[in-house]
């Protein structure tokens, strides 16, 4: 199996899962759970909630693998969208349930934005399209990259981002606008 392109190995596993092969699901979990858990955690920012998201996502994959081929997506992108969608459900539920808890977590999050860490993204299993995005994001300032990534991953508006990151609304708007302009120019070269 290791000689296969990662995408073909994952696609083969998804085909077997569609035929209700539970050993294929175990293998898929071993191959992708860390990557998908990192994504879930990035969106919901709470280990317990992220584990619930991962559990629901893998059950969705178990029951929905038959529709994977029709999506015409790279396998990691397809699974990533399932995790994001479950994670956004969990976020919305939690926002309505426990507004106070969110505030505590927001403080922790605001701190992680301050430090200018190198691009932390993990591209081991990424599809070509994700790799192009990764290259282009790498050319942005850390803060621009963060707000653009969070806007997408958490489906947040300028206002929500400003509130959560404790930044002025105008600053968030500027970072996103400049980040988008640079990204569009860069991505056009990969089109």
């Amino acid at each position, binding site marked *: 199996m290791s000689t296969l392109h990662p995408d073909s190995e994952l696609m083969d596993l998804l085909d077997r899962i569609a035929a*209700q092969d*539970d050993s294929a*699901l*175990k293998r898929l*979990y071993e191959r992708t*759970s*860390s*990557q998908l*858990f*990192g*994504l879930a*955690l*990035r969106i919901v920012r709470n*280990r317990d909630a*992220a*584990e619930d998201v*991962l*559990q629901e996502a*893998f*059950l969705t994959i*178990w*029951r929905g693998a038959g529709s994977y081929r029709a999506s015409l*997506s*790279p396998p*990691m*992108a397809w699974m*990533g*969208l399932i*995790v*994001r969608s479950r994670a956004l459900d969990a976020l919305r539920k939690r926002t309505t349930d426990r507004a106070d808890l969110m505030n505590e977590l927001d403080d922790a999050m605001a701190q992680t934005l301050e430090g200018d860490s190198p691009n*932390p*993204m*993990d*591209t081991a*299993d*990424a*599809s070509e*399209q*994700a*790799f*192009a*995005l*990764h290259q282009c994001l790498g050319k942005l300032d850390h803060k621009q990259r963060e707000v*653009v*990534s969070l*806007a*997408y*991953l958490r*489906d*947040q*508006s*300028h206002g929500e981002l400003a509130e959560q990151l404790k930044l002025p609304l105008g600053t968030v708007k500027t970072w*996103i606008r400049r980040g*988008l*302009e640079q*990204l*569009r120019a860069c*991505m*056009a070269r990969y*089109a």
Partner: protein
Amino acid sequence: MNITQHPDLLDRLAASYALGTLRGGARRRFEALAREHATVRAAALVWQTRWSGLTELQSAIDPAPAVWTRIDNLVQADRAATAMQAARVPQAATAPGGWWRNLLVWRGAAAAGAMATLAAVVVGMQVNGGLRANTGAQIAALQQQLQTTPQIQYVAVLADDKADASMLVTFDPKNSQLVLQRVGGFQEGADKSLQLWALPPGQGPRSLGVLGQDKLLKLVAQEGDVKEVPTLAISLEPKGGVPSATGPTGPVLFKGELIQRML
């Protein structure tokens, strides 16, 4: 202005739309244009695909090992439910009846100590008289199966603290199959799962599996899992159950003796 004549503006709007930061009236106008013009729709799709790459680029972090246990438990319950669905069709065709007769067979088969428990089933069945007709047919079919399947060697009736029977358990060592049948009206919440435990003497509880929502459930078990186990119990756990090593974390709802058939 026809947006399709302004590729740069279209690209900018499509990127914001797919990122999610285009909101309110501007978003609705963009959606209306997309419905009208395939070019606009295509631009939005291109950016949705590009942004979806972000889901692939986050740092990998290992989840706790218990997550896989929970997923696997739910998947196995799913498979059992699917298998039951397939098996139910021919079973439903079997003529109903025979519950009382079968009960007598059981009574004869079971050790004397089981009498009180079996009486509890009768009481439980009368109390829970509201079982639907199709469930009655399933139970009858199961009884029929019990009678014609000599491999059933272990039987347990799990009851709550008021001695109302809630679960009938049979074990077929030949097919390594535990069959559980809900007879009471108990239904766990959507965020909870029932988990079956063997309580071997002098050892910690051992998980035999997590139950799905169906009236009739099958779990895989080896004879060694249930042999010499005097008692089975069912606890209420978080959805998907807990790893066997953890032991039950929720309340024990039903409990009963496991009786080996003497015939």
